[in-house]
């Protein structure tokens, strides 16, 4: 089950790499047997998810240094010093030992020092904003979170989709995201971690599919009655399949303009993916800019109002 992995190496752990694999397998099995293989980042399909899974296993192993003794020693202590066992020693006023104290403080300090170092390195390496290393230019896709669907705009291809994110495998993808409703969170469990989307703000996410396939994407931030159904399909295609798919979308003559956008932006669930063969200058930025204008105020004011930016872009 362990595929070709783009390890982000942790040098101090190289000697235990083989052991890691065994432990990793064992961990996966204990955490949910075979069923777990079908979803989630424990069966990663993207470079980021692969690195995240590896990190998960490393951190668990390090933590077991503290956890396992508790799990083993607690029952042993309880049994050995049970009140019925009058053979064990009894020191009712013993309450301190310098050596034990050093051990009790020292081991966690050491482990946290190691973990802290790992966190620092890995957080920066796996920052969702950090472009992935690749010879190819990342594919730019803009994402708009709506109630209760996702709009994906492909500016380079001048097209858009709803609830279907399609890109070529083995090429980095760079998402720029915003929301035209409340705060949402985008997650493609087998591909990359979550990123929040908020109205009037932009966030970013970089990832890359390791191989072709069909994956699940979802919203994980509760946003009302349609929340549970705000899922979308992720398709990672081979370059040929991808251009075929683009051609297929192009053949449907549907235009994403203000009117079409208003239609998909209503609070509802999209039963099926929607395709727009042309966006004709429809601006992702205009959705963001809408939140930076000035609100309507009922109280009278003679001051001149600056025009709200972004609401009257010609679409």
């Amino acid at each position, binding site marked *: 089950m362990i595929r070709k992995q783009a390890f982000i190496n942790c040098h101090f752990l190289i000697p235990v790499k083989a052991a890691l694999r065994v432990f990793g397998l064992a961990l996966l099995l204990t955490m949910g047997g075979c069923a777990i293989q079908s979803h*989630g980042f424990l069966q990663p399909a993207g470079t980021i998810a692969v690195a995240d899974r590896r990190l998960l296993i490393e951190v668990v192993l390090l933590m077991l240094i503290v956890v396992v003794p508790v799990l083993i020693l607690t029952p042993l202590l309880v049994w050995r010093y049970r009140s019925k066992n009058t053979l064990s020693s009894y020191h009712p006023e013993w309450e301190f030992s310098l050596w034990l104290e050093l051990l009790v403080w020292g081991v966690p300090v050491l482990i946290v020092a190691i973990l*802290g170092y790992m966190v620092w390195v890995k957080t920066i390496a796996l920052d969702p904003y950090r472009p992935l290393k690749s010879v190819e230019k990342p594919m730019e896709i803009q994402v708009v979170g709506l109630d209760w669907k996702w709009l994906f705009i492909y500016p380079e291809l001048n097209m858009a989709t709803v609830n279907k994110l399609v890109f070529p495998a083995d090429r980095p993808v760079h998402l720029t995201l915003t929301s035209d409703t409340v705060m949402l969170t985008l997650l493609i469990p087998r591909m990359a971690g979550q990123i929040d989307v908020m109205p009037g703000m932009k966030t970013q996410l970089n990832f890359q599919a390791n191989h072709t396939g069909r994956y699940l994407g979802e919203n994980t931030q509760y946003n009302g009655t349609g929340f549970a159904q705000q899922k979308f399909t992720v398709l990672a295609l081979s370059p040929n399949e991808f251009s075929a798919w683009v051609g297929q979308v192009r053949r449907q003559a549907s235009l994403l303009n203000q009117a079409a956008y208003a239609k998909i932006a209503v609070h509802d669930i999209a039963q099926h993916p929607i395709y727009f063969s042309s966006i004709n200058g429809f601006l992702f930025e205009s959705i963001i800019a809408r939140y930076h204008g000035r609100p309507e105020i009922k109280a009278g004011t003679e001051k001149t109002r600056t025009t709200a930016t972004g609401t009257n872009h010609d679409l």
Partner: protein
Amino acid sequence: MISNSYWNPWFGKLTLNAIPTDSLVAMGAASIAVLGAVGTIVLITVFGKWRYLWSEWATSVDHKRIGIMYVVLSLVMLSRAVIEAIVIRLQQAVSVNHSGFLAPEHFGQLFTTHGTIMIFFMIMPFLTGLINYVVPLQIGARDVAFPVLNSISLFLTAAGAFLIMASLVLAPFSTGGWTGYPPFTGIEFNPGVGVNYWIWSVSLASIGSTLTGINLIVTIYKKRAPGMRLMFMPLFTWTSLCVAIMMIFAMPPLTVATALLALDRYLGMHFFTSGAGGNMMNYINLFWEFGHPEVYIIVLPAFGVFSEVFATFSAKALYGYTSLIVATMAIAVLSFTVWVHHFFTMGQSANINAAFGIATMLIGIPTGVKIYDWMLTMYRGRVRFTSPLLWAIAFLVTFVIGGLTGILLSVPPIDFMVHNTTFLIAHFHNVIIPGSLFGMIAGYQYWFPKAFGYRLDERWGRIAFVCWTAGFYLAFMPLYVLGLKGMPRRSVETFQSSFEPWLLVAAVGSLLIAGGLISLGIQLYVSIRQRDRARVAAGDPWDGRNLEWSTSAPPPEYNFAVLPHIEGRYPFYQMKKLGHAYPQQKTYQPIKMPKNSGLGPTIGVASAALCFGLVWYIWWLAIVGTAVIIAAIIVRSFNRNTMRVISVEDIEHTEARWHAILAAAVPVSRDQENVPANVGLAEFMS
């Protein structure tokens, strides 16, 4: 449910439509709430107990009574929130590729009330109740520093709980989750009254807790018995002190967050709106500046309980007293430096995430130290498997699993994967249930004999323990798996068939937990029935080590006829060791105690009216409520007759009766702890 434009000067937006007749489940819940309330009122009337309840309980400012009332409130709310948890689990178990039996809107209300109740109206009152009862006894004080303020805190919390209960009948409640993130909870996306209910009930609880914090700080700093230095204080008092300090700093952010959200909703301001300069991230920061310390506010008192329980039932001094205090203080301070880890996914820079991730891990150090200190307390002790100790052991073993997953979540790249999934749900239940609720139950079973004068039934205690722990593992371990598979939290339905078995197991687990709760109820019932065979009036059923065990059970209202003089740690253990545990006093001084006061209940009722008025836009009610609060405080300030004196004769009489019980009591060994022979006098063990 309610049309937005409708408004009536007498009833605001409240109409008969508020009664949730459209849903069978909601209607059932409303009926239970109404029947429960009516039934209680009828029973009190039939037994003619109104006067007794008013003069002995509602107006009482005795810290012991207030503590008990807090715990009763907490147990009532616990019952409701556990039922909600079961409904949530059942819905998820039957809603794989199927819509289940709950409407999404109703499901949203359920997870919101479940979380809000568990945090603000279950665990907070529970720990406040235990602290209230125990701390003054542990430090050798006769009451808290501000007894009337204590009563006000209680009734503010009760008013908040009332609002949540009222929302069952006059629905709906918020669907925004216990964290209430805007802009979803803003007026634009949630124009109904649900969020108003959430805002005002939480605000009341938050103000009540702030006042409790002030009270406790002054009590612990200023009211310790002569000679009791800070480093002589029992661990439970130490954790209470830390908690009180944290309340002072952590509650204002919550008050500010909910108040600003209310201003957005009621006055159209732009703190957290999208657009017009509003910034929802401010809310999220404010909320978690409260929310993270809150985690430790609810966990630390339980750590205090475990410290008492491990030492007592190992018949041994606590290992690493100083270490445990340093660790507690470190946790309290660090808890204010990690709030960003609740939103690693919000798009801030990697450096910020890394810094907060490391800060979060730092908390693992003192927590780990505590775990090992408790284990070392059992080392070379004589461990007795009584119910409180069982909870403590279950805590040790279970909590480290929660700690492990907590460290996982503190690593931003891993958090990106499992944040907002059921992994997170599993983690925080894994921390809070063993780390806080088990502690509270252990504390309840440990101090119950002190508070009521008889022991709880041990057999039902064990059954409850087995149900709770087994139920916990069944209910939450599957959620870890589901979270790793990417199941979002708060899903009313799911679409992966492979989720089904895990969800079914979790549902069974939740039913087992309900069995645990019922067992606790049966335990209480059985214990009351058999109380005459379990009396421990002499006051020391567990061979305790701290001052609270040196009084009769239940203690007299003045706690200590003569304030004890403290010369070291574990004062009662030292007294027993030296053989003068129960000194006979020749003379007593009259004791001044505060008189009962109706101020607390008055402010409670008035603030409930004020907030209910605000929820439903019934302005006259809100104005009347405010006016009553202000008037009540001013009127009270003119009352000079607030103290009464307990005469020397009364004290002599009470003390003589207790000493007679002591004289007649036969000391029992620890083997006889749970048999009728244990009347609360312990054989000294060496």
